[in-house]
């Protein structure tokens, strides 16, 4: 793939489009199919494509394995943390109704944040697992 110029250039053009599409899927999940999980997978696949083009070393300069691991932990913490906010604001765990003045707004906020957490975790986990496999030596 590195050697074929046509594949190489088209893939180059594709990467920003894929990243954009991932963001669209992330934030449009309320209205159409999609959401954090799918967006995370697509986002990660863009970086994996980059790694296939330029080698894993170059990709690791953009997002390192350690950064991916940290992001994965942060995504999960964001999700679980939103739930804890529900408790602090006087509701049950993962109660979004109490997050804003009226329940519908609270629900929107809650869903937005946890989907973000899902997207962050999934994208970084997929990427980190990919790294782990490609760096593994026989």
């Amino acid at each position: 793939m590195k050697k074929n110029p046509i594949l190489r250039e088209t893939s180059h053009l594709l990467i920003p489009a894929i990243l954009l599409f991932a963001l669209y899927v992330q934030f449009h999940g309320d209205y159409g199919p999609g959401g954090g999980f799918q967006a995370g997978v697509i986002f990660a696949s863009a970086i994996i494509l980059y790694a296939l083009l330029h080698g894993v070393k170059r990709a690791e300069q953009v997002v390192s394995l350690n950064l991916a691991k940290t992001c994965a932990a942060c995504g999960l913490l964001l999700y679980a943390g939103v739930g804890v906010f529900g408790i602090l604001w006087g509701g049950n765990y993962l109660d979004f109704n109490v997050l804003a003045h009226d329940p519908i707004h609270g629900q929107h906020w809650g869903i937005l944040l946890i989907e973000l957490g899902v997207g962050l975790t999934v994208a970084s986990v997929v990427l980190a697992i990919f790294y782990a496999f490609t760096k593994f030596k026989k």
Partner: protein
Amino acid sequence: MGGMYSLISAILFVVLDAVDVAFTEAAVGAGISTVLFLSAFSITGKHHELKRKSHLPALLIVLTTGAALIYSTLDMPAFSDPQAPIHQHVAPHYIEESYAEIGVPNLVTSVLASYRSFDTLGEVTVVFTALIAVLLLLGAIRENEE
């Protein structure tokens, strides 16, 4: 081949109205698992096959399982029957009330991220667990090597 299989299942899911599931299956099955299988293959390389002598035990287990399932389908509600019990309880509430309660048109999102958000937290934890497990496994040094 695995990728093709996933794409076909994804199409099947679209036919069955499960667009979110189809999207995921396409991304996961055709994307991630193909990448993972290929990179794992490239590490292990090709191996010659040794065939097992007796297929009988496996066949027996599989046939019993299959028979149990076919037996169970005999009095299932007909495929896509709107009167099936599954459509009478809980689901109508999601379809009728969720827009007033949550304000999100995609019902799958509102069930996934609000009504059953705790399941989704579990799901994200499973993903995280997979990462921890893979990192623990790929990089261990064992006794024989030391």
